[in-house]
């Protein structure tokens, strides 16, 4: 037996050429790049954000309690609450649009649609998901605002939270719909058939059997949609305007975290200035918010997958 093993070792040795080692090293390194990217994101955001808080004009308390965000003014104020509240406000409007539309589309697709309709609607949703956000921004500013918002709510400004929120909502419909659809499809067919066999109608089956059974997956899709709405940049930058003070009027302009990152970076912000460092402080604020949501979504999604495996 030993001879055979020796022979095999010798054979494999002659076959292992240096090129194989190089290739193996390369692909291993590529995989580990994922960790490297994560570390460098956290590292760069943190170091520059720490610089930001070391500036005497900025205080940790001011960052969380001031009610104005005016980093490029003479007397700068850095009230991130203004930005966080606007971000959440627009994200909530987006969710009010995308949750029902996305979820009901998913229920239709998985419970009612024939194979042929599915084949038509799925690609349409994929196309909607592939539209660049700058196009949605254009649509919000040049179509939704004049044709819907200003028609039904006269006196609304050109830039307003409502049209930005609606456009963000439309953008995340495909996310919510496709993940909810997957969740509904993951529910074993026996549950659906059992319910129908007991005489439940398709509406009852969808709402009382399938929906609760897929609930964790659906919640995961909602959280992910919310997270995407928070991180969305171009739509809110183009259509949401910049209103640097605390306000909760959907007809007025607002200033989200992402749009202020863009606007601060457009101004004259040389390396090392407080405004430049503020970009990274905002960056890490945004990163933490979306990170927690993504982890939560992933955790819930993982849990439900186990349930039916």
């Amino acid at each position: 037996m030993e001879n055979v093993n020796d022979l095999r070792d010798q054979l494999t040795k002659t076959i292992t050429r240096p090129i194989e080692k190089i290739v193996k090293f390369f692909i291993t390194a590529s995989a580990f790049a994922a960790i490297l990217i994560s570390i460098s994101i956290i590292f760069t955001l943190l170091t520059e954000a720490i610089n930001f808080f070391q500036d005497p004009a900025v205080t940790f308390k001011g960052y969380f309690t001031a009610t104005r965000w005016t980093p490029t003014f003479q007397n700068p104020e850095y009230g991130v609450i203004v930005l966080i509240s606007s971000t959440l406000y627009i994200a909530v409007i987006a969710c009010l649009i995308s949750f029902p539309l996305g979820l009901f589309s998913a229920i239709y697709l998985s419970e009612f649609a024939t194979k042929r309709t599915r084949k038509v609607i799925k690609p349409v949703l994929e196309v909607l998901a592939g539209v660049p956000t700058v196009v949605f921004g254009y649509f919000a500013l040049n179509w939704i605002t004049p044709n819907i918002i200003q028609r039904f709510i006269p006196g609304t400004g050109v830039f307003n939270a409502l049209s930005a929120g609606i456009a963000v909502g439309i953008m995340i419909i495909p996310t919510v719909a496709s993940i909810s659809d997957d969740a509904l499809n993951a529910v074993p067919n026996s549950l659906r058939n059992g319910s129908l066999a007991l005489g439940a109608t398709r509406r009852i089956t969808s709402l009382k059997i399938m929906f609760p059974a897929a609930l964790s997956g659906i919640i995961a899709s909602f959280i992910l949609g919310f997270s995407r709405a928070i991180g969305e940049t171009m739509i809110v930058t183009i259509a949401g305007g910049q209103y640097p003070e605390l306000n909760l009027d959907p007809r007025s302009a607002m200033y989200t975290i992402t749009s202020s990152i863009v606007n601060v970076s457009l101004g004259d912000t040389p390396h090392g200035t407080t405004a430049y460092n503020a970009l990274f402080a905002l960056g890490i604020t945004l990163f933490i918010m979306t990170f927690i949501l993504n982890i939560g979504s992933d955790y819930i999604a993982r849990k439900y997958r186990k349930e039916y495996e």
Partner: protein
Amino acid sequence: MSNETLITGKKAENAIKESLFLFTLYICVTIAILTLMTLIYDVLSTGTTRLTSDYEVGLITKIQIDNPIDFLTTLDSRYPDRAGIGPAFAGTVWLMIIVVSVTFPFGTGAAIYLQEFAPKNKITRFIELNLTNLAGVPSVIYGLLGLAVFVRLAGFGRSVLSGGLTLTLLILPVVIVASREALKAVPDTIRQGALALGATKFQAVFRQVVPSAIPGMVTGMVLGLSRAIGETAPLIFMGALTYVNYFPDTPLSGFTAIPIQVYNWIGYPQAEWKETASAGIILLLGLLLIMNSLAIFIRNRYEKDL
């Protein structure tokens, strides 16, 4: 699943409820589809006037751009009817070349390692967790990362190279996941057959498994690329929004890209700019349509062979 369940329901009230429910579902799906159609119709109807010969032509030289070819090759201008998308189009082509040449080796490499070679341990699990999280990081954050790492640290400046590398980081997780799916779809019999015939693990993977997964990998790459060329936010940090009105000639030259140019044009208040911006969007959507069709074509053409 026949409609009889509806009819044999105990009460007529139930049947009404059923119809109402189905109606609500129809409405929701219809709204999603109608929005997409409205968006496309609005862009087309505004933009095509800009690209068809409705404009007067100057006596000696053409002073207005009135056809798609001129629009694609002309420089930007202060006047909306003379503005072309040439530099931005060239910038996007540059970005695509850089993104593909960096993303494809790294993305497929990482996928091959994770799918075929990686031991099932905590480190592998951690890499996978990292990939899922990276896919959910907002694109502006990649812009900040690119600004700190490529523009400042590596010293590439605000160049097309920095932009391309930033977009690479952005789509790398997407491409890795898609390539893994492609590898997963290769039947295990191919691996076992190769090993049984005496191939080493390495030979089995690189001579049998990877070649049959290539179409799927290319599809994933094309889809990732189509996401990259539509991205606007990360490129803003690469200085792509300053008035760049020349064709980039080296990887280190300044650049602008189609979505950035469109964003720029949207920002002008005059109504004529709206047409120019729409024309830019038509080009962008056209590019995406071509790339997605290509991906679908590759998928349908080659996946039958497996």
